[in-house]
């Protein structure tokens, strides 16, 4: 049985009036034990509300929340046995590091000696051994993050929820911590429900990614699945893909503003949106190509160069090329498409 089940969970803000908007709109979600699920979505998509609903900090306007198969209606936040790591940590400024970590143990009536032992272990676990007496204000962002994690883990919640766990940290620290977190959760067997707007973070951390949009779940799957087969234009654009156009698919080819484009065998037929991944846009000599474009900009991306191409009377096209082969802005290039990097998206066209 799933550890966490959301059944048609609905939350409306702005009261019962006409201008109420649904922060959660009939959301169904399951999280299995030991699973790490990451909810990914832009700000305002309802992902934080989702966590607050599970935590019991936000009441439901419809639907139900089950933990271990038990309906949580009427169960107050402090009796749900879930942990929540807040976006900005919310460490208690009047208490030192040790007292922050021990807080949850104290609430659960642990003996003092037991508290001290646990705190020491947890601080070692998160890489801050011996920090018990330090003041919260003296901690760096990364250290606060670690203390917040230790504090959330201390009462051994059956489900640990993370709200933008690494949001405020700088990039290199974030990349290091996300690896540490995944290792740690794997070792401890923690069940995790995290929300983030950063796809890199979600893909690196999660067993399963859930993409949210306007209070609904747009797609759910393994990071690889979501990356390779975005369900619709919204998900594709949210993941950073801009080469999305209307097309008519017939057999293994599609009619697009860029001309005929090959699509993988077995794609759905008829009118649809298609996504051309930048890696599927190959640059060839103009003479050999059905489509010629002018290079407008060139952006160095570390592992590759993103080249923006302007075709006559067709949308812009982004291509990824190797550092060596990147053309200069202003150059004329020919374009060929690679069927393996093209996805026919679900027909439903988002605004």
């Amino acid at each position, binding site marked *: 049985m799933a550890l966490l089940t959301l059944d048609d969970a609905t939350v409306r803000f702005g009261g019962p009036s006409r201008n109420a908007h649904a922060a959660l709109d009939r959301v169904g979600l399951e999280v299995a034990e030991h699973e790490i699920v990451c909810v990914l979505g832009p700000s305002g998509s309802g992902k934080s509300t989702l966590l607050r609903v599970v935590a019991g900090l936000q009441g439901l306007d419809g639907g139900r929340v089950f933990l271990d198969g038990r309906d949580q209606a009427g169960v107050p*936040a402090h*009796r749900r046995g879930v942990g929540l790591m807040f976006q900005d940590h919310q460490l208690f400024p009047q208490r030192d590091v040790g007292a922050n970590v021990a*807080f949850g143990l104290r609430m659960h009536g642990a003996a003092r000696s037991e508290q001290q032992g646990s705190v020491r272990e947890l601080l070692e676990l998160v890489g801050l051994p011996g920090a018990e007496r330090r003041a919260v204000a003296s901690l760096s962002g990364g250290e606060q993050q670690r203390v917040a994690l230790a504090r959330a883990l201390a009462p051994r919640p059956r489900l640990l929820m993370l709200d933008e766990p690494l949001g405020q940290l700088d990039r290199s620290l974030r990349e290091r911590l996300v690896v540490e977190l995944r290792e740690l959760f794997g070792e401890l067997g923690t069940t995790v429900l995290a929300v983030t707007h950063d796809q890199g973070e979600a893909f690196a951390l999660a067993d399963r990614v859930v993409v949210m949009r306007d209070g609904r779940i747009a797609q759910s799957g393994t990071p690889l699945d979501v990356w390779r087969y975005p369900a619709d234009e919204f998900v594709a654009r949210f993941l950073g893909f801009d080469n999305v156009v209307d097309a008519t698919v017939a057999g293994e080819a599609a009619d697009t503003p860029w001309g005929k484009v090959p699509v993988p065998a077995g794609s759905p037929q008829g009118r649809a949106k298609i996504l051309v991944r930048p890696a599927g846009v190959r640059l060839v000599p103009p003479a050999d190509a059905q489509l010629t474009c002018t290079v407008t900009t060139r952006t160095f991306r570390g592992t590759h160069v993103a080249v923006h191409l302007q075709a006559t009377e067709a949308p812009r096209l982004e291509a990824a090329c190797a550092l060596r082969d990147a053309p200069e802005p202003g150059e004329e290039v020919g374009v060929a498409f690679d069927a393996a990097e093209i996805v026919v998206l679900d027909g439903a066209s988002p605004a």
Partner: protein
Amino acid sequence: MTLPAVFFALFFAYPVVAIVARGLKTGGHWQFGRITDVLGQSDIRHVLWFTTWQAFASTALTLLIALPGAYVFARFDFRGKQVLRAVVTVPFVLPTVVVGTAFLALVGRGGLLDQLWGVRLDTTVWAILLAHVFFNYAVVVRTVGGLWSQLDPRQEEAARMLGASRWTAWRTVTLPALGPAVAAAALMVFLFTFTSFGVVQILGGPTFSTLEVEIYRQTAQIFDLSTAAVLTIVQFAAVGVILAVHAWSVRRRESALRLVDAAHTARRPRGAGQWALLGGVVATVAVLILLPLGVLIQRSFQGPDGFGFAYYKALTSSDSGAFLVPPIQAIGNSLQYALAATAIAVVIGGLAAAALTRRSGRLVRGFDALLMLPLGVSAVTVGFGFLITLDKPPLDLRGTWILVPLAQALVGVPFVVRTMLPVLRAVDGRLREAAAVLGASPLRAWREVDLPMVRRALLIAAGFAFAVSLGEFGATVFIARPDNPTLPVAVARLLGRAGDLNYGQAMALSTILMVVCAVSLLLLERIRTDRTTGEF
């Protein structure tokens, strides 16, 4: 810093020291033995005891009644919140004399409760305690509620996620954060009630007397200057201790708290419990604050021949015998004095606040505390001190009108400083640097950056100083000349005489004074933003 320091030395320290010296020095020798003599008298001990316990009781009662109000203002969003906030604050700027009169009309002889149920509280201590709560409700709501609204509600949520119940979360997370603010508010309330004069003078009758009232009695009625001097010293010492504790608690309050924008922490009440709490607070405000003021207004219109403007008309004639001039002239006098006092207070207080912002260190902190002293030192002593020190060259001010505004400004300055200081300190130096980099000279940068940010606070400070000056009673009662009374002085004099006409005129004059104060406060509320205000 020089001008404020000179101002305080000349118009505060010198008169107070002089009058104490006058009382304790006979034949060129200090008579410190008088201190133990006076403190040994049983009636004086009784006054001391009453002053202290009524201050404690008033403070406890105020906290008890006002803390739920602070919570409601901090955490709930509801229609009419701004109006309610303004209503709650009105009493704080009302003259003590008006408050005394209003409660007299409610619980005194022939008052509303007397008429309805034959209940009179003016012979009991309850009238005084309730009037003190009435006065200081806003102090607690503003000081505690202001901080409370800036505490991040997610701190409590974090505690709840770790297994704390709603109550435990409040007790372990919010209460410690609020503690210093509660302590500071309690100390302010204690200070105001410990030195209470107008309220006790009117409601206390012959039975109840605070130190301040006793000082007045000894000075103005019994002419026992040495007893008054001893009492002044006692009060001075007590106030010094209170202010020291206050300064200490303010410093603790500045400890690292997570503060957020107050605009995001309030939300609509949910559930029967929260609505009941809101209803309870509104009911408390209605009974405690609106009712006395309503009764006051009603009484002022209820003349011998039914409802009408009889008492107001009587104010324009001078043949009532209480004054040499028609009482109505007191309005003009009061406004002129208060305007002059406001100007002085803003200049002195503004300079002091600016000096306190620029510098730091022990000396400055001492100066900071010193500025608060006039709030607690016997105004009666200051007033009498003015009379005996500023009467000879080179400072012969007794014949001039400036004497009254000077005394009133003394009480206004602490409010100006308290209002300006946080705002001045909050101006980010980098904004000035940004202006400089964009080509603004230092003076220009001050005008373009500092002034717009401070202007609001300056207006608010001026408003407070105006209201406080308008209501000042203790010092003014000594130095206002009989032919130039201020409103509070006129009210007190009318109340001091027998007869329905005098009583009714006192009600009418109090109503006018209340309206002037309330209007100036409501104007303030319009320019006030929650973010940029000081302690009051």
